[in-house]
């Protein structure tokens, strides 16, 4: 189990009203193999209208974090610590009734697999209308009109007719648009998108992401985009939080992360993006080794076993803090000095990446 870290207050830009403030969130599940911590002390803020991308591998805890904000991970064997403040309401310990008011109306979510996320035996019109009518006292006809408007907005042709169609009558991309329409139906302040494009074709991916961005521009909703694909993030994110093994290991603006990454894991992620403007490497670059299993994490920095730059201090958990004076909002969890980071991350001139750690097989 990880050692408890010193609670560090991430510095807030002065005078900003944050829509959502998550502080030291921990989520654990009781399993047959013992207590497993999926989210190990995550803190971040979300301002109105901004797009925050949460990036990480499977098992990094990014999805659990997103679902916990909506209270979807509550069960007899889950435990929570920490807080998530949304417009004056505390989400983590809230009772079901309060949470239900928030869900769908204030914070909405779209999920990864649109085929299984829609009820196969109900018409999609009905599924949109039921959400509208749950939160607003709108008569049937008006709710129907709103649903048609929404389908139109997300780009579904012949919306009026398609209202009576079933999910299986749509293609994958269309279904995901329906999910987006559902999510936006009550004008939420935050849209959480959990790997919205992973189950879709690459060509559709771009369309969906663009649609999300346009809708953000139109409605002013903030977006939390959970994904494992850094490439997806580049066009749309304002800020990025990189998660590894239950913790945020680096957090900053889009430019900061892409051009001045501070954490070796981020270097690895960037290095593994195949570039069309560079000569083809002999092998696809990948980070050696595997992420630690949830019940069996290394002491101190979780990335230690795979990090070629590991040194003695890494046994202590590095706190998430700003280590560069000029950038108070760019946080990371790496004990290396700024100078070391600048040098070590260039595996080849002008190329950011991560060397393979010798013997890094898990």
């Amino acid at each position, binding site marked *: 189990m990880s050692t408890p870290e010193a609670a560090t207050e991430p510095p807030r830009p002065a005078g900003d009203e944050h829509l959502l403030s998550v502080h030291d969130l921990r989520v654990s*599940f*009781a*399993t*047959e193999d013992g207590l*497993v911590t*999926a989210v190990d002390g995550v803190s971040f803020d979300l301002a109105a209208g901004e797009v925050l991308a949460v990036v990480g591998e*499977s*098992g990094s*805890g990014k*999805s*659990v974090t997103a*679902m916990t904000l909506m209270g979807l*991970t509550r069960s007899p*064997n889950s435990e929570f610590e920490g807080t998530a403040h949304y417009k004056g309401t505390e989400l983590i310990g809230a009772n079901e009734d309060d949470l239900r008011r928030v869900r769908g109306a204030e914070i909405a979510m779209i999920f990864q697999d649109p085929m299984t996320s829609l009820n196969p035996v109900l018409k999609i019109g009905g599924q949109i209308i039921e959400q509208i009518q749950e939160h607003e006292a709108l008569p049937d006809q008006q709710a129907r009109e709103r649903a048609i408007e929404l389908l139109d907005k997300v780009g579904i042709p012949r919306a009026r007719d398609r209202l009576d169609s079933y999910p299986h009558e749509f293609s994958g991309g269309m279904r995901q648009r329906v999910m987006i329409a559902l999510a936006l139906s009550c004008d939420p302040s935050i849209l959480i998108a959990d790997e919205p494009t992973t189950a879709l074709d690459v060509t559709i991916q771009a369309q969906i992401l663009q649609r999300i961005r346009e809708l953000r521009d139109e409605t002013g909703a903030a977006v939390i985009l959970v994904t494992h694909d850094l490439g997806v993030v580049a066009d749309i994110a304002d800020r990025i939080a990189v998660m590894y093994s239950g913790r945020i290991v680096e957090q900053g603006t889009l430019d900061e992360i892409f051009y001045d990454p501070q954490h070796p894991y981020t270097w690895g992620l960037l290095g593994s993006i195949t570039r069309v403007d560079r000569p083809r490497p002999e092998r696809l670059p990948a980070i050696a080794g595997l992420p630690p299993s*949830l019940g069996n994490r290394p002491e101190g920095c979780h990335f230690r076993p795979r990090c070629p730059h590991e040194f003695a201090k890494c046994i202590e958990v590095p706190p998430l803090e700003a280590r560069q004076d000029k950038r108070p909002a760019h946080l990371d969890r790496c004990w290396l000095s700024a100078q070391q980071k600048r040098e070590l991350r260039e595996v080849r001139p002008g190329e950011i990446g991560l060397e393979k750690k010798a013997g890094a097989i898990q």
Partner: protein
Amino acid sequence: MIRAIDYAREALCLAVCVAAPLWANKVAHTTPTENHLSDTIQINGETKNVVGLDGVPIGPTWHGEFFLGADPNGRDIMVRLLYGGRNSLMIGIVAAFLTTILSIVFGVIAGYFRGWSDSIIRAGLDVIWSFPVVILGVALGVALALGGIKLGPIEISGDSLWVPILIIGVVYVPYMARPIRGQVLSLREKEFVEASRAQGAGPFRIMFTEVVPNLTSTLLVFFTLLIANAILLEAALSFLGAGVRPPNPSWGTMIDDGIDRISTAPHLTIVPGVMLVLTVLSLNVFGDGVRDALDPRAKVRLER
């Protein structure tokens, strides 16, 4: 931890229900068919008639002889219970066995080879499936009563215990063969079957060594539940007169006899029924427990 104790308790209960009848002849003081019409027995110093002058047999004495009372013919109920249980259990278990074997054969062939054999087998199963279980049992029971049946060189007389075994065994085949076929359909697409095929193994070999072993957990659960249902069906058929024939005892025939005299001697009906329920219940609970234990979905779902 708690589970283990539960299972032990159930297994014990089951063992008692099954073992006692099978050892009937060691335990009993008399045979199931012997009449003790004019006998008297001693209870607490009093002498009582086994069968009263008005024809009403004695109720449970909770003593060594006639522990659970007697029937109108003076036969010891406890003894008949044990012997009848032997018949009921034997029929149930052997029938379940028969069903299992047939289901494996048909289910695996249909699921593995598909095509023609699948269509034919499935059609056959559908046809049997179209009959209510008891009605089909009655139909076969009546049809086979007089002359029995001839399967090639084997002749089975109409009065033999093999007739109900055969009937029950065949009637339940669709209920087991279908799920097996379904599982085989998905198993045959798995990699280890592909690998075996690539190594040049013939279809029958693959079926034996790869497919069937993967069916064991399903088979185990089904088999247990089958025995339970077979025992109930045997009781039903014997009750109606289309199963076990007198004077062979079975819990079903005992209940049938008992119902006629239910007002004067209710123990004749209650006793065999309770025994039946206990046995079938322990089988069902056991089968349920096994199914739960083997269910992979029992693990907690962790997020990606």
